[in-house]
């Protein structure tokens, strides 16, 4: 299951999707909207993506993970649009016979997705301002992120 959705992420569906009778381990990662970043309060996040490319990148990463580790199933769901505090923006699940592989693959997938998927978030700060988050990009202008890296 590879999906980009406007709706709340259904982690049960994802867990069910990666199940296998050969699996001894399932690792689920859920990325949620954090209220505080370096002491500054977030009200919500807005995500947008280049959808066809995102789906393609997810599929390539899934294939690469399956090549690198002896995993059974692997799924990714990313939410776009408004995501409130505590809600999930991404869920990744991996099943494998042995747990070390599921942990390694899920962690690697998250690292890669954060580098390779054409998805962007906009922080809506509690003080009413908002800005795109573009790691490595800073400079003048109300739309520039003031953090050099994405911190989740």
């Amino acid at each position, binding site marked *: 299951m590879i999906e980009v959705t406007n709706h709340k992420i259904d982690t049960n569906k994802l867990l069910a999707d990666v199940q296998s009778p050969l699996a001894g381990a399932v690792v689920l990662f859920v*990325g949620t909207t954090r209220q505080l970043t370096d002491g500054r309060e977030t009200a919500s996040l807005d*995500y*947008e*993506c*280049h959808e*066809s*490319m*995102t789906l*393609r*990148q997810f599929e390539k990463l899934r294939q690469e993970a399956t090549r690198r580790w002896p995993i059974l199933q692997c799924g990714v769901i*990313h939410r776009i649009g408004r995501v409130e505090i505590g809600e999930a*923006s*991404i869920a990744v699940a991996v099943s494998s016979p042995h747990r070390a592989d599921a942990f390694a693959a899920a962690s690697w997938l*998250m690292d890669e*997705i*954060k*580098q*390779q*998927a*054409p*998805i*962007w*978030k*906009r922080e809506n700060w509690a003080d009413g301002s908002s800005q*795109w*988050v*573009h*790691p*490595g*990009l800073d*400079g003048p*202008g109300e*739309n*520039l*992120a003031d953090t050099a890296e*994405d911190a*989740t």
Partner: protein
Amino acid sequence: MNLNVQLFAVARDWAGRDQIPLELPADATVERLRRELDRVVPRLAESGVRFRIAVNDEFAADHQQLHENDSIALIPPVSGG
């Protein structure tokens, strides 16, 4: 050839639109397209950061040759997850 570049996030804000139509020589590369975008949206060059360019849903190298009907997108530093 005529190409259309999709813009996202801060790049769209800088350009004030979500796509930019460009006319380029038939043998244009990604590098040539990047120079054209820098000219049309000066803040791209001013940012000091080279945004990646995607051709047909894949990240493209600068020397890659472009073709009519290629689907092109400018990819600012990503922050998904």
